[in-house]
C-alpha cells in the first residue's frame, strides 16, 4: 500500500484550485480569478465577474441623455473623458449636429491627456505588480500634473464629466495652454527615466519576455483591442481607421509590434505616450476660436433608430450603442467595453505559465474592473 502511494507521480496528483481575489492587490479592483494549479503551473484561469456590477446600462434607460454622461465616467474611470466622448458622439450623430472645430480640438487634447495619465497609472501599478515599488511613486507624481490641468479646467480630477452632448461643459481655462505645454516639456524629459527604471531592468526582462504570448490570430478572434492587441500586430486603432473628433487633422503613427508577449504590451503603451504627446503638440498651439458648446434643446430627444459610435480608449475600442424610441430616455444602451473583451483572453494566454506570471500577464492587459462589470 505504501509503495503504491509513493508511485503516484506529481502529474497524477489532483489539481489545486485557489481563488485569486476578489480582494487581491494585483487585480486592481474586485475581480475573482479561480486558478487551477498543478504545482505552480497554471492549468486554467476562470474569471468570476460581477462584484462591482452597478447596472449602468439599465440605469441609462431611466435617465436622460445628458445625465448618462456622469455614469459613463464610472465605467472605465481612468479614461473617463473618452467614455464621455463616446456617448456624446453617438447623441450628436443621431441628431446630426454639426460640431465646431474648437470643440473637436478640445476633446482631442483632453482625450490624449487622459490616455497619457491612464498609461502613467498603468505603468506605476504594473511596476508595482512586478515588485518595483519605486515605479508607483514616479508614475503617480507625473500623473498629478495632468490631474491638476483637469482640475483647473473641468473642476474634478478623475471623474471629469467634462463632455456634454453638443460640446463641453466649460470653456478652457486661460492657463490651460501654458500648463499643457509645460507638462509636455517636462514629461519629454521624464519619460526616458521610466525606461531607465523599468524598461531596461534585467529583472523586468526576465519576468516579461516570452510570457503570455498572444498570436495575431488569437488577438483577432478574441477581439483584443487597444495596446494589448496592437502589441500582437492587430491594427485596430479606431483613431486611425475611423477618425472621430480632430484625429483626421493630426499626423500620428499607429504603434504596432509583432511580439505579442507581456514585454511588447508594455513597450506599446510606453510608445503610445510618446505618440499622444505628439498629437497634443500639433493641436495645442492652434486651438480655433469659437463657441465651446453648441446650443442644444433643453430636452434632448433622439429620433427613433439605432446609433453606434466607437472610440479608442486607453485600453481599446469602446462602442456606445443606443436604441431610441423617440423619447427623452434611451430604450436600450449597450457599451462594448474593451476590458471585458480583453479579460476573456486571460485563460488562453496564461495557461502553462507560473502563477507569478499570471500577475504580470494580468497587469499587462491593463484591466479596469468597473468597466468589466459596468
Amino acid at each position: 500500500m505504501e509503495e503504491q502511494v509513493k508511485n503516484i507521480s506529481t502529474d497524477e496528483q489532483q489539481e489545486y484550485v485557489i481563488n485569486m481575489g476578489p480582494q487581491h492587490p494585483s487585480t486592481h479592483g474586485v475581480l475573482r480569478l479561480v486558478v487551477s494549479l498543478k504545482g505552480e503551473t497554471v492549468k486554467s484561469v476562470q474569471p468570476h465577474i460581477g462584484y462591482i456590477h452597478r447596472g449602468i446600462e439599465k440605469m441609462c434607460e431611466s435617465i436622460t441623455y445628458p445625465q448618462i454622461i456622469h455614469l459613463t465616467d464610472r465605467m472605465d474611470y481612468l479614461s473617463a473623458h473618452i467614455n464621455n466622448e463616446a456617448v456624446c458622439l453617438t447623441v450628436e450623430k443621431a441628431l446630426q449636429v454639426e460640431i465646431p472645430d474648437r470643440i473637436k480640438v478640445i476633446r482631442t487634447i483632453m482625450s490624449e491627456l487622459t490616455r497619457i495619465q491612464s498609461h502613467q497609472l498603468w505603468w506605476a501599478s504594473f511596476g508595482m505588480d512586478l515588485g518595483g515599488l519605486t515605479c508607483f511613486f514616479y508614475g503617480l507624481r507625473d500623473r498629478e500634473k495632468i490631474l491638476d490641468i483637469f482640475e483647473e479646467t473641468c473642476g474634478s480630477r478623475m471623474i471629469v464629466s467634462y463632455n456634454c452632448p453638443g460640446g463641453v461643459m466649460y470653456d478652457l481655462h486661460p492657463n490651460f495652454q501654458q500648463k499643457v505645454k509645460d507638462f509636455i516639456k517636462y514629461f519629454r524629459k521624464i519619460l526616458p527615466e521610466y525606461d531607465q527604471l523599468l524598461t531596461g531592468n534585467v529583472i523586468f526582462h526576465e519576468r516579461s519576455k516570452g510570457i503570455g504570448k498572444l498570436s495575431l490570430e488569437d488577438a483577432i478572434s478574441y477581439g483584443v483591442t487597444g495596446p494589448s492587441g496592437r502589441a500582437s500586430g492587430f491594427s485596430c486603432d479606431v483613431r486611425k481607421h475611423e477618425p472621430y473628433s480632430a484625429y483626421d487633422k493630426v499626423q500620428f503613427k499607429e504603434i504596432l509590434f509583432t511580439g505579442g508577449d507581456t514585454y511588447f504590451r508594455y513597450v506599446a503603451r510606453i510608445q503610445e505616450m510618446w505618440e499622444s504627446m505628439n498629437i497634443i503638440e500639433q493641436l495645442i498651439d492652434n486651438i480655433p476660436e469659437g463657441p465651446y458648446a453648441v446650443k442644444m434643446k433643453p430636452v434632448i430627444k433622439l429620433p427613433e433608430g439605432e446609433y453606434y459610435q466607437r472610440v479608442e480608449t486607453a485600453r481599446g475600442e469602446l462602442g456606445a450603442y443606443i436604441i431610441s424610441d423617440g423619447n427623452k430616455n434611451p430604450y436600450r444602451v449597450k457599451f462594448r467595453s474593451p476590458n471585458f473583451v480583453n479579460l476573456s483572453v486571460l485563460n488562453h494566454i496564461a495557461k502553462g505559465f507560473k502563477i507569478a506570471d499570471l500577475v504580470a500577464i494580468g497587469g499587462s492587459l491593463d484591466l479596469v474592473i468597473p468597466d468589466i462589470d459596468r
Partner: protein
Amino acid sequence: MRSIINYLKEVYFGVKSLLVGMKVTGSYFFRPSTIVTQKYPNNRKDLVMFDRFKGEVIMPHNEKNEHKCTGCGICELNCPNGSIEIISKTITTEDGKKKKAIDKHIYRLGMCTFCALCVKTCPSNALAFGQKFEHAVFNRELLIKTLNKPGSQLMKGVE
C-alpha cells in the same frame, strides 16, 4: 567558451541595468527641490483649490441675505440621482399678489455625484460650487443640507 562569455555578458548587462535604475532614484537624493509631496493636512491654511473645483453645491447669498433661487425646480429635474429636492411655499407680495417661492432647497451631499448639471442648467445662476472638500461627518443625517439660509429672500429683479 562562448557560453561562458555570454553568461558573463548577461551578468554585466544585468548589473548595469540595475545600476542605471538606481542612478535615477539616487539622483533625487541630491535634488530635494524636485520632490513634490504636499504636507496635507499641515498645509491646510494656505491650501487653495482651483476656482472651478467641485467641492459641494452651494447657494451664494448676498449681504442682505438674499439669494437668486426662484424655485423653478429645473435643478431637481436635471439631477440624475435625486440629490436635490425643492420644497416651495406660496407667499403674498407687498402688492397683494400670490407668488411661489422656495421654502427649503434640500441638497443631499451623500448622493451627489458632482456632474454639475444643476449648476449648469439653473436659469438664474442661483447655484454654484463651493471649494470645501472635507466632508467627513459622523452622522449620515448631517450630509442632508438646506442650501437657502434661514430667513433668506429672493433677490430683487430675479424672476
